[in-house]
């Protein structure tokens, strides 16, 4: 048997690096716009429909940029 203390932080570090290679992704910060409900806004982080819409928007955005070039 052996000790494995201090491991969780290191694991998260290694995992986030590998995950970026296996599932390429970016992390962006969206500041809460004025006039929206805070609770509803915070729930968007887990909202599959919203994330899908963001993915579609990213595709369109990149295509538009490519076309411009």
């Amino acid at each position, binding site marked *: *048997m052996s*000790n494995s203390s201090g491991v969780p932080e290191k*694991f998260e570090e*290694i995992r986030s690096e590998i*995950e970026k290679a296996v599932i*390429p992704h970016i992390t962006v910060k969206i500041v809460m716009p004025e006039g929206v409900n805070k609770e509803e806004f915070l729930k968007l982080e887990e909202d599959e429909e919203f994330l899908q819409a963001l993915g579609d928007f990213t595709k369109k955005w990149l295509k538009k940029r490519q076309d411009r070039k």
Partner: protein
Amino acid sequence: MMITIIFSIIFALILILLVTGSYHRSVVAMLGALLIIAFGLEYGVFGTQDVVGFVFDNADTIALVIGSMILCEALGRSGLFQFVGLSLISNIGKSIRWFAAIMLLLTVFLSAFLNNITAMLIIGALTLSLEKRLEMDFSELIIYEAIFTNIGGLMLMISSIPNLIVAGEFNIGFSRFAVVCIPLSLILTVVSIYMVMRRMKTAAPLKENLEIDPWSAVKDKKVFYRASLIFILVMIFFVLNDILHIGLGLIAIAGATAMLILSGEEPESIFRDIDWGTIFFLVSFFIIVGGMEQSGVLEVFAQDVSAVFLLFPALAYLFTILVCGAASAFIDNIPITITLIPIIKYISGKVGLSIETLAWSMVFGANLGGNFTPIGSPSIIIATGMLKRKGKNISFYEWFRKYAVFPCVHLLLAGLYTILLVVI
């Protein structure tokens, strides 16, 4: 006589505290070392110079452990091992059994060059990331990977700390270690992969053929090439040490220094991530066992064991594997190895057995025994921790029922291999 009883009580207390895990293992070992020093000096068993000697006699092993830790930490950050992993699993098709076999081979490869904790962290992170991408459940595979880290752990001299200690104590060179241990490690790998593949007969195939760019795991190609070059050079010097006799500790420290200068990483952050607890644990145990050896406690024990082995000499090798294996299932394999070394030396001299074969028995038992229980090795503790986060608990009963067959087969094959070593 009095000191023999006192030292035996201290040692028993240390073992109890290590098994129960009530305190950090390094703190337990440091407390034990302090008690041994205090009583040893008080009863005139040894002087302060002798205490320094207990540590400095093992300076090369300690340097090798520290150097290897720095090397591995910097190598892990360079992305070399992640690159190898992603290269191996890219475009392998959709067969789950083929995928599992490659992941397990990769585990053995990683743990041959890294300590088991780092190897498990890398392979576990890779498996969980693939699980997320493929939307499949790889819980079972994570457990197998943990078991396989202990197979890779006996492959090379640098694969685990017990290997380094045994090699240092018995003057076994890097090449000699590889020549004896790689074949057994490969046999165990092939047999175990076969066992896993049989269990995965009905598993669903992968949902897609993985296409991953391995370079995406590398942050800086320059650092990657530099780190890989230093690593290869260190390996070459380890092999050449049998001719050059530079000292493995010195080679490891030189490699670590080169890595600190050229890796591009902040040395302070590398030093921060080194497992200093293990170093303190190791040094403290050298003092504990050095003191016990000087007091004659270990000799008393060795005399009793020798009496049995004089009747059945051939059993000594198998007995050593079993004792090391069984003890490693519950206690850290580092103190087991350090404690058994003087006993093994005594028995070898008294009964006339091959000291090197007894050393191999220790290496096999200490590395493979950790797979007997879910607390037997750090990689298994990490793997079960990963599953716990996914809401899956593995009890002792479940472990024995599903996974204990692996160490049983491993120790049986290691026993047969040891007999083969004696015969040839």
